[in-house]
Every structure is written in C-alpha cells, then in structure tokens.
C-alpha cells in the first residue's frame, strides 16, 4: 500500500504524470481564481453554475448520439456544460432581479431544478439501447483515472491563462475586489473586470468537472482560499498560499485515489483539502482558533492582573488598614469578583513576585509590584481625565470607559495621553472620583 502510494506520488508512470499534471494545475488555477471569488462573496454562485451544467452535458450527449456521433467527445460535452452552466447563472440573476426572493433562494432553485433536469436526461440516456453512457457518471462524482493527455494539457493551458491574467491584472483585481465602488468611481472598467473574473471562474469550473465532479468542483475554488485566509491578511500571500494548498490537495488526493480506484477522485481531493482547511482553521497564524483562544486568554489574564494591581493600589492609597479578611472583602466588592477570580488574580500576582504577605496579614506590594501598580493606575487615571476633558464623557461613566481601554494602552498611546494632558507631567493624577462621588467605594 505504502510502496504503491510512493510509486504514484513519485510520478513513476506516464499515466500518473498525465493525471497529476491535470489535477495539480487545476488545483493551482482553482486556488488562484478562488481567492477573488471568495472575496467577492460569490462562492455559491459557482455551485449553481456547476450543478446547472449537468443538463448541458446530458443534452450534448443526446444530441451527439442522435446526430450519429459517439457522444463521448469531451469538447462537445464541455461545450454543453458551459452553455447550460451560463444559462443557470443567467437564471439566478433574473430570479433575484425580478422577484422578491433572495439570491440565496434563486441559487437553490436553479441548482436543484437544473440538476434534477440533468438527472432526468441521464435517466433517459442510461436506458438507451447501445449508448455508451458510462463516461457520464464521472461528471457527477469525478473521475481522474480516465484523463488523457489532451485533457490534461487543456487544463494546464487554462491554468496558465488564469495565472498570467491574475499576475498582470493583480493591482486592478485587488482594488476591484476590496472596493468595487471606489474602483468604479475612480474610472476602472469594473464591469469588464467582473466579467473577466467570472469567466476565469466558470472556465476553471467547467474544465474541472470531469476530474472533481459537478457536486464538489466548488470546493476546488473555495476551500484553498478559505484555508489560506487563516494564515494571512495580505492578498498576494493569500493568492500564493491558496495556489499551494490547491496544488498539494490535488497532488495527494490524486495519489490516494490512484491506489484506491473505487473511491471517487473528487471526493478524495476535497477530503485532503478539507484536512488542510481544518488544520488552518485550528492553527492558522493569523485567524486560527488556537491562536485566537491563546490571545484572548492572555488578554483576560492581563486584565485580571492589572485590575487587581489597581484595586490594591487604591486600597493602599485610601490609607485604611484592615486585617487580611477585610482586605479581601474590600477587593472582592470593588471589582465584583467571585472568590475564585480573586484567588486566581492573587495567585498570579504572588507568583510573579509583585505582592507578598505574612500569613494572616494583609497583602502588600513588593517593590516591582508597587511600580507596576503605579503605572497601571496612572494609565487608568490619565485616560479618565482625557475622556472627561476631551471626549465630554460624564464623570460617572469614565470609569467604565477607562476600564475597557486601559489594558490595551501601548507605550505610544500613553505618551500621547501625557502630551495631551501636560499638567500632570510624570506624576500620578488623583482619582477623578474622590470628590465627585466619595461614597463610590473607591472604584476610580
């Protein structure tokens, strides 16, 4: 099994090389064109186009047989697919333009009805005497094994066209993708770019039909860019990454389906792409779930720590001295913490050596802790004063506003605050709440 797989993946056989060339270039073309499709929010339109191509394939077959041909000529079938796919797209546009149905419903109507009609035509073909209908099944679930040299070359050429056009028109496509209104206002030929983009996408769809299948071809176009999106916010990087993911997915997918011929090739390729997507979703360096979780955990911990620092600082500032039990009760009531949260915060600070206590005595700042608490409190109060004086926020509201922002104030922002409020210099502003609402309990 493994040796077989290695043999396929190392491209030892001529046939393997042909099929690999076809599917990998398809993966690249899909990955590149798909980025713009995805960002233009048209992903499901392609699903409708591919489903709508089935009656075209079947009708082309029927027509070719009726006219005395074999019906298995690929260009004829693809032409049929193209015509009815475009017809389907036209229907989507007409339905969403002339009725109050959403585009969502228009897509659903077109893809199910066209596909159903295609299935009815296929049903006729399957019962035709003497017709070789076997090749048509490949259009639904995908069949790479039967790919011949000319087909692979055709896909290769199309992929080359997609890549070259994208490279040449990259700047235009970028502007048009992110801000079509601005592009139109700036005099770019937006409609022609849109048409070009949809042409590329439809071309990839139709060329890929036989390899990946009508139902899953959309995945070739949207899964690689969707996966790439988790790693980067830069369009160029996204395009390159998406092409790479598409190519790798096609390479391994085709390899696996070559040694397990019963499995539909399209399904294997899409499953491999799905695995790449899952990996990106979890571990993507830009938007991955794990990274997001780690980041939000870090923010939460930081917030908790800073809140305790300030609460303790203001406790000491108030000059009141209690035993440890009263101190803990005070801290808990000021921030509205549960016992567990307070314990967690204290544990964090104690472990980093910022606070200490002799058992039974109240918690005290260490030297580093006192400095850190001073900084945190200062940031909070600077921001409060800024909100009061420059943003006209009511005194009773500034505490909350400052609470949100103080934890993410960077050094540059603090410097700007200092510049905006020069009268404080490097000193610690007094709390804005100490006079306005003395019974507040010390929140500010």
């Amino acid at each position, binding site marked *: 099994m493994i040796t077989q797989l290695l043999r396929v993946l190392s491209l030892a056989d001529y046939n393997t090389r042909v099929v690999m060339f076809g599917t990998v270039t398809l993966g690249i073309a899909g990955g590149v064109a798909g980025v713009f499709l995805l960002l233009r929010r048209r992903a499901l339109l392609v699903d409708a186009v591919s489903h709508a191509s089935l009656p075209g394939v079947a009708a082309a077959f029927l027509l070719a047989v009726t006219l005395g041909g074999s019906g298995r000529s690929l260009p004829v079938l693809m032409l049929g697919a193209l015509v009815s796919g475009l017809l389907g797209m036209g229907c989507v546009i007409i339905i969403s333009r002339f009725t109050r149905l959403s585009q*969502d419903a228009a897509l659903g*109507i077109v893809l199910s009805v066209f596909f159903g009609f295609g299935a009815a035509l296929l049903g006729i073909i399957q019962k035709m005497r003497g017709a070789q209908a076997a090749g048509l099944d490949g259009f639904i679930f995908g069949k790479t094994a039967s790919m011949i040299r000319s087909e692979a070359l055709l896909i290769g050429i199309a992929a080359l066209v997609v890549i070259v056009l994208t490279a040449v028109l990259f700047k235009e496509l970028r502007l048009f993708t992110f801000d079509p209104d601005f592009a139109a206002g700036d005099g770019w030929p937006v409609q022609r770019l849109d048409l070009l983009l949809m042409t590329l996408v439809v071309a990839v769809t139709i060329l890929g039909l036989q390899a990946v299948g009508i139902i899953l071809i959309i995945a070739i176009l949207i899964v690689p860019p969707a996966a790439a999106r988790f790693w980067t916010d830069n369009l160029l990087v996204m395009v390159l990454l998406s092409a790479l993911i598409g190519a790798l997915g096609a390479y391994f997918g085709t390899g696996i389906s070559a040694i397990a011929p019963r499995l539909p090739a399209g399904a294997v390729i899409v499953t491999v792409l*799905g695995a790449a997507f899952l990996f990106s979703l979890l571990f993507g360096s830009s938007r991955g779930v794990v990274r997001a979780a780690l980041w939000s955990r870090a923010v939460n911990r930081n917030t908790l720590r800073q809140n305790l620092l300030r609460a303790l600082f203001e406790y000491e500032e108030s000059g009141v001295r209690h035993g440890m039990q009263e101190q803990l009760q005070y801290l808990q009531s000021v921030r509205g913490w549960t016992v567990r949260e307070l314990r967690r915060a204290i544990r964090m600070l104690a472990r980093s050596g910022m606070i200490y206590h002799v058992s039974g005595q109240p918690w005290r700042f260490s030297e580093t802790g006192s400095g850190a608490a001073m900084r945190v409190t200062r940031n909070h109060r600077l921001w409060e004063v800024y909100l009061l004086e420059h943003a006209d926020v009511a005194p009773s509201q500034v505490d909350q506003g400052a609470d949100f922002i103080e934890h993410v104030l960077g050094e540059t922002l603090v410097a700007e605050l200092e510049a905006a409020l020069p009268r404080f210099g490097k000193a610690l502003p007094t709390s804005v709440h100490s006079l306005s609402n003395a019974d507040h309990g010390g929140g500010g």
Partner: protein
Amino acid sequence: MILWTSLDTWIVVAGALAGAACALVGAFLVLRKTSMMGDAISHAVLPGIAIAFIMTASRAAGVMFIGAAIVGVITALLVEVVRRYGKLEHGASMGVVFTVLFAVGLILIERAARHVDIHPEHVLYGAVELVPLHVVTLAGFELPRGVAVLLVTLIVNLTVITALFKELRLATFDPGLATTLGINATAMHYLLMTLTALTTVAAFEVVGSILVIAMLIVPGATAHLLTRRLLPFLVVSVVVAVMAAFLGHIAAIGIPPWFGFEDTSSSGSMATVLGLLFLLAFLAAPEQGVIARGLNLAGLRLSIVTQDALGLLARAAEDPQNPDAGLSFADFCLVSRSPFTARAPALTVALLLLRLRGQVSASGNRYRLTARGRAEALRVLRAHRLWERFFYDDGQVELDELHAAADLLEHYTDAGLRNALAERFAGQSTDPRGRRIP
C-alpha cells in the same frame, strides 16, 4: 400508452409525502433567507448516514434519524464557527463545510457498501423502484417501508410546526421581537436545521437528495411569489410539492416515449416539474408575476403619456392666440418643455388611446379636447398648478425648477390629494407664475 401499476402509485405517494414534508420545513428556510442551508445540510448528512450504516450494518431508521439530527446541528454549528473565525461570508463558509462533509461521506459510503447495498448514485437519485420491496405493517395497514418512514416524518414535521407555529412565525419575521418576548430565535434556527436533516434522511432513500433539495426550496419560493400570508404560504408550498410529485412521475413515464426513449428517473423529473411550476408562478403570479408587473407598468406609462397629452391640450386651450384651441402632431413635440420631445411613438400611442376613449377629437392634422376630455385635462392641469403653488410657497423651490417637480407628481394625484392641496391654498387662484388654477 402509459401502463400504470401499483409501483407507480407508490412512487407518487412517496414523492408526495417527501415533497410535503420538505415543503413544510423549506417554506421557513425560504422565508428566513437560509434556503442554501437546506442544500448544505442535505449534502452534509451523508457522512452521518454512512457512519450509521457502517456501525449498524443495516438501514435501521432509528439510528439514522439520531445520526441525522446530530449532523444537522453540527453542520449549522460548523458553518457558524467557520464564518466567525474565518471572517468568511455565510455562503462561502457553507460551501466549505458541506463540500468537505459530502466528500468525506462519499468515501465512507464506498466503505459502507461492503456492509449494506448502497452506492453514491443511490444517495443522489434515490432508489424509488425498490420502494415496494420492503413492506412493514403500520396500524394494521401494509405499507412499503420507505413510505411509512416518510409518513412518520411528515407527521413529525406537521406536529412540530403546528405546536410551535407562533414561535416560528415570530422568530422568522422579527427575531428581535421574538427574543424580547422570551422566544429563543437561535433555538428555533437549530430546530429548523434538525428538522431539515431528519427530513433529508427520511427522503433520500426513496427520492434521492436532488429531489430533497428541490422540494425544500422550490415550493417555498413558488409560494413566496403567490401569497404574503404565512398560513396560505405553507398550504401553497405543500400543494405545489404534491402536484410536482404527481405530474413529475407522469412526465417521467409519459414524455420520453414521445421521442422514442424509455422512461426516466422520477425524482429528476419531479424536480424539473417543480422548476416549471416555479416558472409559471414567476411569469403569471397575480401580483408579483413578470406579466402582471409588466402590464401594471405599461398601464402606468400609458396613463402618464395620456395625461401629459391632455395637459398640453389644456394649456393650448388657454392660449388666446391659438384660434381653434388645438395642437397639431408637430406642435405637441415643439411646445416649450414638452414631454414628447423626441418621443413621437409615445405621442402616437397616447393620441390613439385618447381618441378611442373619446377625450380627444381630430380634424385634419389638429387635435382638440372633447367635452369629456376637457374635464380630465383640467383635473391634470389643476393638480399641476396646485403642486407648483405648493412647492413655491411651502417648499421654497425656485421658479425654474417648479415645472419638473409638478410634472412628475401630477400623475400620482388623486381627488383626495387634489382637494387637500386646494384646501391648503384656498385663497389663491393662480400658480406662482400667475396662471389661473382651473
């Protein structure tokens, strides 16, 4: 000649039951603009079905339903996760989730084929001709198993929708209000997704997932064009689905022979008929159909051009230098600010219609108002000048711009509005340029 057997009856019954069950759920999907979620879920249940087959090595309905319910909710959740973390639009995140799940399902089905007799084609087209082979006894009646399962599904859907009708309606049309009234709109969403998954699983074995998707979306979309009230909406959806099942099967066995072929797949044909029914509604719906709206628009255009022509004639009648108070065809286009400049065909139509109505008479090349036409023409002119008064006095609009605004509004002014305007300007008998308001 169609040969109708009990098999045909069962196919139609199965199709109609599947259609009714799907249409009930699908109507809500269409209203909530989540039709493609139905498509996504009916693809995504495939791995659930396959796993159920592999685990139980049978087609036990119970296990499959539990699997389907789980998969339905998981799909909806996954779509949400991908959308949120990937910052993808809803459609793209659906596309990613359902294609990948479907692909995994296809591979699993190939493995399951060792245990039970199933192929990917069955999932798409169903195996309707096998329906009468497995018979179960339900409440004393012998029913094909597939039909019994669909019947139960339909009853479940009907029960849930009847029981939660108020909640579903609110959550569909005004999720915000629903939430303030204590109805959990999110729970309703996942409930619908679960029902969709259950229905898909019940129906796919018999009619195939192609027809499931069509039956979920198209009946609701058709009903959307025909009615604006929820209860009729549901009824129309179900009727459309049942009609499509019946007509679709007849078409499947009846139409191909015309061209010298044998019969074809019933589910494909039912989906096609659904499309045709939708097309019919699209064209001929009484209010929203393309034909009705086209006629409506044409009527409006006609009323505007005839009123324009009457207005010009009424002004011509005021002109003391105009001996016969009429206009020639060329005059219509040449008077200042004529709406007919470079629109001779519109004028031809307008004059023809006015003569047919007896509001304008023609002698030689001159057109004049008849007594009947005069009354209507004065109404138009009155509306026009009242509007000019209104815009000048109350709207501070410049003299030069008055005409265009009044020209537009005069066509939409009925007696009530005219009287209201007249009351407002009771003391004034002229328009801002000093011409008399008739």
